[in-house]
């Protein structure tokens, strides 16, 4: 029997706003536990939530990028449950009136565009981080109250690859809208996955299994692929799939049982009485959308138009700081592609070697642009420019020109007219070599190239000289 996977994703995105969702405590600047807290974040009796405007603006931008209907009145609800990581004993969320509804995102799988529909996007606050030890648990309230947006897809996803692409598409939107770092490894983008399978052609859904703790985009694919195999094997051997929550174990590449789900918890939602409904003017919503930074797709399109390959564009866009660096530098050179080459090959190589990221790079984009211009306009080869670049990276006090001089690099003559001048000189001085070449002695060509190099004091490009020399010899 052939099965079809039915997959839905719930993605939680941590916003990188200056302050928290409902308090003025700073958000995400310190790694020292319990240093970024206001009385509200600790649930002190009598404290009250005040909605963070920037968090609303971010949510509007993401909702718009996902083609959603945006609610122009904000409502918040309380989700009530008892747990040690929940300071107030409830979480403020948007259950009944999410800020965005009914959207979609398009992903590309095997060269085909597929549309994944999105049910809702809503704002809420994060809980404490728990650090479990043998016989005690520590609470870090820094995370409590950090603004989150949750994006819930409809079960339109059919494979691990699609799920990964979908999550990457969401990541690209939240990152380029300035909403979040979108780093799964660091937990600023968290992905809960619902997976069920059904025989192809069957309408009804199978039993849903939730997978948590997936810590990378690649692992979304791995976890789902494993889970689909596991469920298929169960069904084929006549065993039912149980409704349960599993986690992905990276080491073994498997999903592991966390808990069997009984009836869904009753969170006793009700409207948050300390936040009266907030009317958003059309102007406010429009302004939030209008001022949204350029998103991934728009940037990529622009990069392609500037002559980059799709792969190169994606490499650069994978890291927003890299994209910003690229845009700053590429504007100062003749061909964006030349700047991209240095960035992708030389700079990335350098950063990898030093185990650094683009954020650590001291070299300014305009300096790299200067070096690229030495190739584009200064007659130096890529190799020569790369040498200069390495020299500047080694000694940041050097300007590219100073580095060029200290390396005794001189511009190559690649102008064919000038090269021809040297060639004619060399041929006139060595008629015997012409005869030798015509007689089939290949060494003669090498000798003549050497003479050209000598006459030009090494300034001509030897490959170009050899090509032109051959052409000239053929004519004679």
């Amino acid at each position, binding site marked *: 029997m052939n099965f079809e996977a039915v997959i839905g994703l719930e993605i939680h995105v941590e916003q990188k706003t200056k302050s928290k969702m409902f308090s003025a405590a700073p958000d995400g600047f310190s790694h020292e536990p319990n240093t970024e807290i206001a009385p509200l974040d600790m*649930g002190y*009796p*009598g404290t009250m939530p005040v909605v963070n405007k920037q968090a609303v603006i971010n949510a509007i931008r993401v909702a718009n990028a996902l083609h959603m209907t945006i609610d122009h009145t904000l409502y918040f609800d309380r989700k*009530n449950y008892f747990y040690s990581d929940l300071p107030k004993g409830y979480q403020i969320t948007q259950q009944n009136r999410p800020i965005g509804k009914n959207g979609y995102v398009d992903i590309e799988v095997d060269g085909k565009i597929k549309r994944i529909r999105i049910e809702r996007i809503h704002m809420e606050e994060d809980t404490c981080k728990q650090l479990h030890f043998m016989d005690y648990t520590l609470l870090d309230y820094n995370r409590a109250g950090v603004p989150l947006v949750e994006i819930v897809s409809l079960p339109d996803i059919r494979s691990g690859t699609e799920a990964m692409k979908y999550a990457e598409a969401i990541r690209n939107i939240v990152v380029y809208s300035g909403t979040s770092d979108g780093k799964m490894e660091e937990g600023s983008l968290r992905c809960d996955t619902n997976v069920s399978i059904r025989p192809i052609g069957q309408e009804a859904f199978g039993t849903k299994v939730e997978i948590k703790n997936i810590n990378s985009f690649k692992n979304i694919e791995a976890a789902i692929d494993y889970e689909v195999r596991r469920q298929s094997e169960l069904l084929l051997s006549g065993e039912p799939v149980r409704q349960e929550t599993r986690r992905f174990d990276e080491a073994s590449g498997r999903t592991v049982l966390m808990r069997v789900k009984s009836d869904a918890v009753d969170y006793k939602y009700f409207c948050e009485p300390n936040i009266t409904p907030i009317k958003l003017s059309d102007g406010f919503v429009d302004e939030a959308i209008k001022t949204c930074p350029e998103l991934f797709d728009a940037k990529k399109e622009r990069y392609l138009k500037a002559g980059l390959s799709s792969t190169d564009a994606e490499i650069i866009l994978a890291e927003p700081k890299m994209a910003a660096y690229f845009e700053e530098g590429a504007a100062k050179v003749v061909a964006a592609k030349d700047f991209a080459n240095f960035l992708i090959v030389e700079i990335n190589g350098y950063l990898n070697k030093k185990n650094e990221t683009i954020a650590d790079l001291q070299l300014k984009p305009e300096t790299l642009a200067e070096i690229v211009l030495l190739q584009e306009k200064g007659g130096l080869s890529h190799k020569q420019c790369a040498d200069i670049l390495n020299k500047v990276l080694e000694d940041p006090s050097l300007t590219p020109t100073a580095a060029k001089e200290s390396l005794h690099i001189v511009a190559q003559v690649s102008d064919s007219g000038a090269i021809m001048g040297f060639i004619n000189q060399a041929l006139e001085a060595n008629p015997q070599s012409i005869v030798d070449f015509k007689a089939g002695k290949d060494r003669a060509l090498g000798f003549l190239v050497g003479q050209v190099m000598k006459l030009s004091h090494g300034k001509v490009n030897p490959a170009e000289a050899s090509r032109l020399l051959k052409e000239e010899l053929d004519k004679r």
Partner: protein
Amino acid sequence: MNYLDQPLKEIHEALVAKKVTPLELTEEALKRAKENKDNAFELIDEEGAKAFAKTLTEPEKDNPLWGIPYFAKDNFSTKGLETTASSNILVGYVPVYDATVIAKLKEKKAIMLGKTTLDELAMGGTGTTGHKGKTFNPYDPKHEHMIGGSSCGSAAAVASSIVPFALGSDTGDSVRKPASYAGLVGMKPTWGRISRYGLFPFAPSLDHVGYFTRDVYAASVVLDALAGRDPHDSTSSDKPVEKYEEDLAKPIKGMKIAVLKEIVDSITDKELRAHFDKSVEALRKEGAVVDFVSFDRQLLESCYATYIVISCAEATSNDANLDGIKFGPYRGGKTYQEVMYNARTAGFSELIKRRFVIGSYCLMRENQEELFLRAQRNRAKIVEKVNEILKDYDFIYVPAAPGPAPLFTKASDKLSDEYLIADNHLCLGNFAGLPSITLPLCYENGLPIGINFMGRAFEEKKLFQVASAYERLSGLAEASVLDPKEALL
């Protein structure tokens, strides 16, 4: 006679004239507080109060609260001072921040002497359920009659002339009912007029900061100090704060007053009814138009149930942080569930647990439509009716309670008209968030009974105007246990 027995205005004049110092006033008030036998205090901050009083040496002529001592109900967050809300679960809890009203009064150089008792977590109307036991009514030295609640300690402190004003909170009638039983002015303004930041929530959609004074002038200047937008409370209004005492002397000629017929009719106390009718005549004589207006009997009868459902539902959630992990004494347990179970079992009284069970039940998925959401819709209906009457009338005027303070031993029949209507109508002001003020009307066997005016949203100034006119008619301004006056109505 001491300055503390005089009206706030006269105390202020004496302070400005340096006839008395804030420290002298504070010391006398502390002495009275310590001698008081009504179990009105959770905490008396003798040292802090005196230290602050000593710093007040230059009187501020235009600040009527300068150097005035006061008490706060023990459900206001006070930085560095234990705040228990009269519940065992908060014993030992020392807040890290001041409630906005506490900070504002500090800024006004009013001197906080300490914290007063309340019904546990402000849930209750009897003044008997706090962890320190019953708070007594100073009008009854035999201690047989209650003072009402939940702001029982604050009411007792002002009625005993220990302080000229005290902070309370009002979710159903928790300031305005005890004010009736203690012969006081009890005021709660429009929802959003005073910041609730730092008030321990009972049911935030109904919660108000309120306060007790002994006259209308004091009530108006206290609101001057407390009102205003607070960035910590997003439900606080940015409407400009007024000079609430400005119109106190103005006549009320032409003002329209609606007496709710069903409420007056459900009162069986003939003496009270007679006094109330006299007051209506007196208001008419002043030129006010007073009409008896029908509300809607069924809607009035539904107030109590609506109140219980909404307030208990919100309360279960508000107090979910008191779990032995975040707040409340740790009482052991192997799992987090056990820790919470043990802490909450030991920390809350049976009455509170009952309210939590009711609230939780009303919010359950299968009951929410039938109970919580239905109560919400009914609240909207009630509010609509109130506002409909206030379209034609400036005020709604009714007796604040069906009679004087009940005996501790008296169990009310919770299905009688008198209970359902006459004893529970003040929550109309909480449902609609409207300004509402209780004032003394008369005494029966030495026990006071009050009336209540309710006005339109943010029309506090006008409410004080009618209250002030009424006060002149009643002759009961500044009455207290230490300085009783004779009712003229």
